[in-house]
């Protein structure tokens, strides 16, 4: 955007921006000043799906708050997993991925309208860092219920069993009798998976190991397997949900952007100019924007919040992940000889039983056009501009602020009156009425 570049004489840095992304000081497209990460949304689960061909690595973050003995995770998997296919990931990698791909706020400061414009020779992008329980149930009882324990392992703080089942109600009973707190009516949700000959990965916390490990939280569980199915089972999670749930899916792939094949995938509104006060309340702004976009898409869509090649970012809300971090999340094709990039798609879905009747199915496309949720603050020149050029400038600033009010209202559903009030002295002034408006008022 060359004209925008010419308008940009001085780009000031907020303390927050310096703290968060010190190296973005010369980025071309504005400074990152705040982010809206996944923690904003209550009950947001996060899943990382790494996929190339049929090879898949899933990382599931556990945000479980409650008695550890109550924790149970049941995930349908395509085959019986061996011990080596299960791994414990690092939470900080997921947090970094979240920070890197979060919707971001950038800000620009207008130049003095009375000075000659100076061309801003900014860099278009920033390089990446160069381095790159065992169950006690008798087998006879299991047999009666049609459940087979295919394998059982203890991995880190988790006791894991891999089950196959013949009937869904048998499986539900088995889980309950084995001490897993599964919600009522789980069997209806379990049945389609049994019919498709899928296995069940069932995890609960081994409290002894958990205490011995000294972790204050549950670490992410990872699974590696091969499957034709590029999908994410979400139906089981709805069995005990008392409202919509937020899920952030990060896919890391080799060719391009990932989208759903059985639900609409839309991009969140982005690259819009909004009033300056949002800087102090970016979280609330993004939550409202997401709700509004979700509503507009009929509550049946996945929203793309970010799509980028993991090698760089612009502006960066956090540094790109290092090769080690990517490997930690399961990117298996960067093996020392090959530093081929990975594409990150961040999909945010708010699902409930009524609007998402079936699991999410995905496809990887060849689309490599980068996208980010990016919101722009433009601060008017603060000095005393009194030359003749300044009059036109202040008119344009007023028009811009009026547009910002309209944009913010339509993106968030906030009332224009509230927005104007919150803008304070920056609120756009009403235009001077024309002589004929005054005449017939």
């Amino acid at each position, binding site marked *: 955007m060359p004209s925008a570049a010419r308008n940009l004489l001085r780009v000031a840095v907020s303390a927050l921006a310096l703290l968060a992304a010190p190296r973005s000081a010369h980025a071309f497209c504005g400074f990152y000043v705040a982010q809206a990460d996944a923690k904003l949304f209550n009950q947001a689960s996060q899943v990382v799906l790494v996929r190339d061909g049929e090879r898949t690595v899933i990382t599931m973050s556990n945000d479980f708050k409650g008695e550890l003995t109550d924790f149970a995770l049941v995930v349908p998997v395509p085959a019986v997993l061996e011990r080596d296919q299960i791994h414990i990931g690092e939470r900080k990698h997921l947090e970094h991925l979240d920070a890197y791909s979060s919707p971001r706020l950038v800000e620009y400061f207008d130049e003095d309208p009375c000075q000659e414009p100076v061309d801003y020779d900014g860099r278009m992008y920033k390089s990446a860092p160069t381095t790159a329980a065992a169950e006690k149930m008798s087998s006879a009882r299991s047999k009666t219920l049609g459940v087979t324990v295919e394998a059982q392992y203890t991995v880190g703080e988790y006791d894991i069993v891999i089950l196959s089942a013949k009937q869904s109600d048998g499986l539900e009973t088995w889980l309950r009798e084995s001490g897993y707190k599964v919600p009522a009516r789980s069997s209806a949700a379990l049945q389609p998976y049994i019919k498709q000959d899928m296995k069940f990965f069932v995890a609960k916390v081994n409290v002894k190991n958990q205490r011995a490990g000294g972790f204050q939280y549950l670490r992410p569980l990872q699974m590696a397997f091969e499957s034709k199915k590029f999908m994410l089972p979400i139906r089981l999670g709805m069995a005990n949900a008392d409202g919509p749930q937020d899920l952030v899916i990060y896919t890391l792939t080799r060719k391009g952007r990932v*989208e759903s094949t*059985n639900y*609409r995938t*839309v991009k969140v509104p982005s690259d819009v100019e909004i009033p300056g006060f949002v800087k102090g309340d970016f979280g609330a702004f993004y939550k409202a924007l997401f709700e509004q976009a979700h509503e507009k898409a*009929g509550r049946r869509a996945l929203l793309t919040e970010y799509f980028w090649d993991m090698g760089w970012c612009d502006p960066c809300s956090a540094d790109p992940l290092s090769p080690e971090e990517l490997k930690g999340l399961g990117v298996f094709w960067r093996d020392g000889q090959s530093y081929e990039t990975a594409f990150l798609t961040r999909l945010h879905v708010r699902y409930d039983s009524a609007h998402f009747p*079936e699991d999410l199915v995905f*496809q990887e*496309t*060849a689309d490599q056009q980068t996208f980010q949720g990016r919101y722009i603050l433009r601060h008017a020149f603060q000095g005393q501009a009194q030359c003749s050029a300044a009059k036109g400038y202040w008119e344009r600033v007023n028009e811009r602020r009026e547009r910002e009010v309209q944009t913010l209202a339509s993106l968030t559903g906030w009332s224009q009156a509230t927005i104007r009030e919150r803008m304070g002295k920056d609120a756009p002034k009403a235009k001077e009425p024309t002589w004929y408006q005054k005449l017939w008022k």
Partner: protein
Amino acid sequence: MLHFDVPPWQPPLIIATACATQWGMTRLMRVPDAGYRSALISSLGLSLLLRTDTPWVPALAAFVAISSKFVIRVRGKHIFNPTNLGLAVCMLALGAWCSPSQWGESAGLLAWFGIFGLAVAHRSFRSDVSLAFLASWVALKAGRVLYLGQRPEVLLHQLNVGSLILFTFFMISDPKTTPDRRVARVGFAASVALLAFILQHGFWVNNALIWSLCLLSPAVPLVDRLLPSARFRWPVAVAHPSIERTPECPPLPATSSASP
């Protein structure tokens, strides 16, 4: 609200290329002018389904689609549905993709109503191929939902897909690329549905309908040889009977549904 997510220049580029190809190939191959209706229908399909990052791919898809009608022919009939072949070639060789669910469910519902309205009003939408395909597809999908014990909403969700509507009424319905005899047409439509179902649910292949039609289309000349019948021609033949008449085929009633 429809948000097709296609760059605004793409549909005009596709239409222009398709019409230009139709014009050029008609002259190059010295065949009678068949009008632009088929080219426009192909353009509609490509505009709605084809997704690509590369600016020249939509034009190439339109060119491949239309020129295939003139080049890939057996006994006076072209083999592939133009839209289908254009999509298949671009997906297979040029990294293009289809976004089957991009219409959204409200748009899908509107399109179903629109299509059924047209079917009532206009007989060319009442093709036996479309109806046979739709019946087979719904039966297979409903059977799967029942077998898996899923809720009926799942079936509705799977049928409310824009690309399915387009496929049913603008792609497989193409009277020029389906068998001549009615019973063979119905069998062909059911086979396309069955193969697509197997590809989608047995092998997890995306865009299974497109691949299924593409794979089965070459069998049509063989079916025509085994089960010969009179040939369909576009309704324009009624207005200008001399244009479309070919020596080996007698003039026919206007629509496929009226043929024996």
